[in-house]
């Protein structure tokens, strides 16, 4: 699909410097009070996100020290006990301490979430940038592959991959990373397509910048905000996907505690012991929320255009 580039010899130094100016928009005059309150709030959410994320990381690293009980120790004298002083989040159907299991399960979620998204971002950004900028057959090949992977309903493909490779944490990471790649690649390509037709990219091309330089210096920096927003959502969804796999029984094998696995068991005891389903779901919810808050804070910090806008 040969796109019409500005062809002909690049006239070095001939372009007016003003054309290449890509600086941020001059901000309007924000209402001072609103801007202040928004910043305070934003800071507070980011702070909250950082605190929760830190708590989850500490839980994952120091689970041995923090958990009051062995997460797999069964107590047949304390089956499905409601929350009490001895068991702050109650006990499950085998008399295991729910709090201890929730703490240990943070390990699984964090590992899978971070590594899977790492795989997805490195693959997706490269694919989208090459595809959108080069056009032609690289675009066709990459996008057909992306289309094919994305055409699969994500969870179903992750289920099938994990089922085929054998249920384990590592295979869940691979499956989820693979399944998350198209979202990044597609977004990156859409951004690249739109940006490469803008005047400053044309100008850079006229000035003789090489395609790698244009991609790296003029296109990629203008796409970081949406990519970060997307990657943040992906950590969230990777954690949820892992939990979904475990909830459906294809993820982490019992008795290893995982939030999704605990919900699976909890769903069978909803009428007698609803607390079995409350705590692990709440843990997923808060962890995902925290990653979103941190990501949102990053977005604000990274995009100058969002930091001082007119309020209405």
């Amino acid at each position, binding site marked *: 699909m040969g*796109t019409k580039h500005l062809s002909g010899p690049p006239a070095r130094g001939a372009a007016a410097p003003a054309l290449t100016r890509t600086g941020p928009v001059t901000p309007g005059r924000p209402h001072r009070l609103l801007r202040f309150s928004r910043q305070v709030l934003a800071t507070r959410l980011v702070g909250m996100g950082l605190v929760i994320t830190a708590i989850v990381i500490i839980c994952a690293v120091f689970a041995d020290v923090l958990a009051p009980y062995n997460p797999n120790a069964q107590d047949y004298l304390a089956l499905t006990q409601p929350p009490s002083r001895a068991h702050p989040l109650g006990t499950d159907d085998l008399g295991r301490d729910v709090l201890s299991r929730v703490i240990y399960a943070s390990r699984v979620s964090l590992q899978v979430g971070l590594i899977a998204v790492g795989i997805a971002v490195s693959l997706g950004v490269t694919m989208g940038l090459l595809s959108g900028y080069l056009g032609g057959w690289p675009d066709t090949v990459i996008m057909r592959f992306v289309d094919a992977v994305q*055409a699969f309903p994500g969870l179903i493909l992750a289920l*099938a991959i994990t089922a085929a*490779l*054998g249920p384990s944490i590592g295979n869940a990471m691979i499956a989820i990373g693979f399944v998350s790649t198209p979202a990044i690649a597609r977004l990156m390509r859409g951004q690249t397509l739109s940006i490469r037709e803008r005047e400053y990219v044309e100008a850079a091309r006229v000035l003789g910048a090489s395609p790698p330089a244009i991609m790296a210096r003029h296109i990629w920096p203008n796409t970081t905000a949406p990519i970060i927003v997307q990657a943040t*959502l992906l950590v969230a969804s990777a954690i949820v996907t892992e939990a979904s796999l475990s909830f459906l029984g294809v993820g982490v094998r019992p008795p290893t505690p995982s939030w999704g696995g605990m919900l699976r068991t909890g769903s069978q005891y*909803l009428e007698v012991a609803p607390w079995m*389903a409350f705590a692990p779901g*709440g843990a997923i919810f808060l962890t995902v929320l925290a990653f*979103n808050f941190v990501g949102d804070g990053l977005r604000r910090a990274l995009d100058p255009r969002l930091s001082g806008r007119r309020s209405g």
Partner: protein
Amino acid sequence: MREYILRRVVSMVPVLLIVSVISFGLLYVLPGDPAIAILGEELGTPETYQALREELGLNDPLWVQYGNWLGRVVRGDFGTSIRTQEPVATVLLRRAPISLYVGAAGLLVGVLIGLPAALISALRPGSRLDVSVSMLALGGIALPSFWQALLFVYLFAVLLRWLPPSGYTPPLTDPWLSFKMLLMPAVVLGTHSAAVIMRQGRSALLEVLGQDYIATARAKGLAERRVVALHALKNALIPIITILGLQIGGLVSGAAIVETVFAIPGVGRAAVDAIFFRDYPVLQGAVLMLTLAVLIANLLTDLAYGYVDPRIRYG
């Protein structure tokens, strides 16, 4: 443009072929097959591989098996369910309308809540309304659908006893019961979409509202309504279309969970069940059918780009 549409439709053929190779490869041969090569990893145990080969009687060369399988699939023969001995196509066609019904209800919930919320929020960034709507959206994104489903069942079925905990009734058999049974699945399915549409739609609108031409439009004294309707909304359409397009795949996945939790006999539920019963023909048929649906949604998304933004050239 017409040429582009034609080429794009033709280009779905290789995509479908890749899809068929992945679904064939994933489920029929484990290590060292094309799907694993695509994954870039050499994983899976030889025992399960051999067991599976034994179970399915795979002795032909791979490409012959694939060719035979593909030939049957193209003719609409997805094989026979190992569990029920029914033709897979019959099973799936019976279940497809149910999934469509639930999925459409979910998407409707998502769009009706998500889009207006995004606009309200982006027009008054930092206002109390924006903050509340944004907080709700962050909550909606973070809320795992299966947990939401369990909480709903606990609240509305176990505690309040307002709604049946699960099950499905065709709308024509008993419209009221059908509606009551649809309520929880549709809201659970639509919540995540609504939140994503709101959040990314807001961020797309804000991105556009920060551009030079918006400042110019305002500077030349255009009414704010005109700036938003003519300059901002039009330019924000591309990312919003991308978001909507991406929701379809999510909805289909969500349907698998929602159909499982609420015991709705749809295609997603069939796929999940098939994994546990090792009913591979049903799993493949379900995956291919759902995949075709998402492909059509992708096609419409791509076509919409060029329609909305003439800067994107299809050359």
